[in-house]
């Protein structure tokens, strides 16, 4: 039988940040790369993000934040995934972050952080290299 799984990604906008153009652009890039992308919509709490990720059985969560609340929101998502025994789901961040926060985010379990100007192909390739569909 066909053992090829499609990568499923949740693109989520946690917090009060209302700018979702970047998230939509990346969602389209992921679709063009052959992934199935669930888009969460705006103003998600970390709890809502994790619940959606579990219901949708995604391989990766891409968190988008341009409003500065990432140091609370992103690690909280990682924490909740652990609590729900779902920490096999890879978590990435995209958006505007101060340089000094990036290592802190990675320490907190965010696998990679993409800042403005990163070419879409680079992001897509990173996902293909680092995110394996569950079970493979």
């Amino acid at each position: 039988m066909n053992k090829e799984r499609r990568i499923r990604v949740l693109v989520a906008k946690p917090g009060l940040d209302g700018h979702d153009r970047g998230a939509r652009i990346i969602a389209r890039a992921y679709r063009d790369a052959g992934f199935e992308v669930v888009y969460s919509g705006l103003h998600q709490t970390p709890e809502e993000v994790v619940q959606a990720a579990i219901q949708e059985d995604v391989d990766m969560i891409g968190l988008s934040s341009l409003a500065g609340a990432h140091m609370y929101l992103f690690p909280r998502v990682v924490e909740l995934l652990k609590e729900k025994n779902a920490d096999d789901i890879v978590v990435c961040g995209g958006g505007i972050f101060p340089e000094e926060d990036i290592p802190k985010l990675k320490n907190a379990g965010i696998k990679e952080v993409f800042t403005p100007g990163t070419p879409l192909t680079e992001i897509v390739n990173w996902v293909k290299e680092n995110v394996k569909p569950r079970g493979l």
Partner: protein
Amino acid sequence: MEIVQKIKTGDIRAVARLIRDIDDNIPEAREVLKELYSATGNAYVIGVTGAPGVGKSTLVDQMVTHLRKSGKTVGVLAVDPTSPFSGGAILGDRVRMQRHSMDEGVFIRSMATRGAFGGLTQSTRSAIDVLDAMGKDYVIVETVGVGQDEVDIVRSSDTTLIVLVPGMGDDVQALKAGILEVGDIFVINKSDREGVDKTVGDIRLMIEMDEKRYKDGWKPPILTTQAAFDKGIRELLDEIEKHHLYLSSNKTMLSKLRYEKAKSDLSEMIKDRIAKEIFIDITSSGEFEEAIKSIVDKQIDPYTACDTIVSAKLKSNIR
């Protein structure tokens, strides 16, 4: 099987993973489905279809809210189209149902059509069974409103809603005949827009002209709603309930429906299985590529190529 137990008790992770495994054709998933089948048949399945942009997701969101208020649990399958070019998909219906994400009584799952054979794919039909076995009182399936979907959805649903918006005018005339035959309830959403009376009139006329269909049975009602403003939803759910009562009040009807559903399920599964088996075989052996090249080089016509492949695989002769 442990996973069967988990699903019957509503374990979200187990349900989510099984739906994914079904979608990805994992053989073990099929075994689970076999065991789960006896636990299906309890959920009431509502199909919601209509052109893109008519407000299906918003409507479903409101229906879920009302159903939850009456203490019912709901599973939602939101189907969006797979890109025929990349094989990927953007599944955005969840956005309209955000307020239910933390409600344990609601399970929302987005699925892509994965386009291979069109219509309501086998995976979606199986996912309905899983949400049914999970114990949901209602399963709402929202599908892309183009192509074969509209007709396929009725075979998997107890009640099918056709959603339109006013001002479709000539579009109503141009609606494929199939849609009118499969709709149990017609919903004109965004009814604050201009042209609602005409649209109601057009649909009513079409229903009247098709009287052989409803003469002894259910005449599809036409409702107006404004889903974004929570108007008309209560009435819609009442009509769905009426349809439910109509279906269950008639023993002959019930057995006919069960027969049709089993027939449809089995036919679709056989077609799906045969096609998949053959394709996997001929793509991995290179036969498919070879056949394509032979056709391109005009060494063989596609009909002969097809018959050669199929009769070899089925070990019988195609007449």
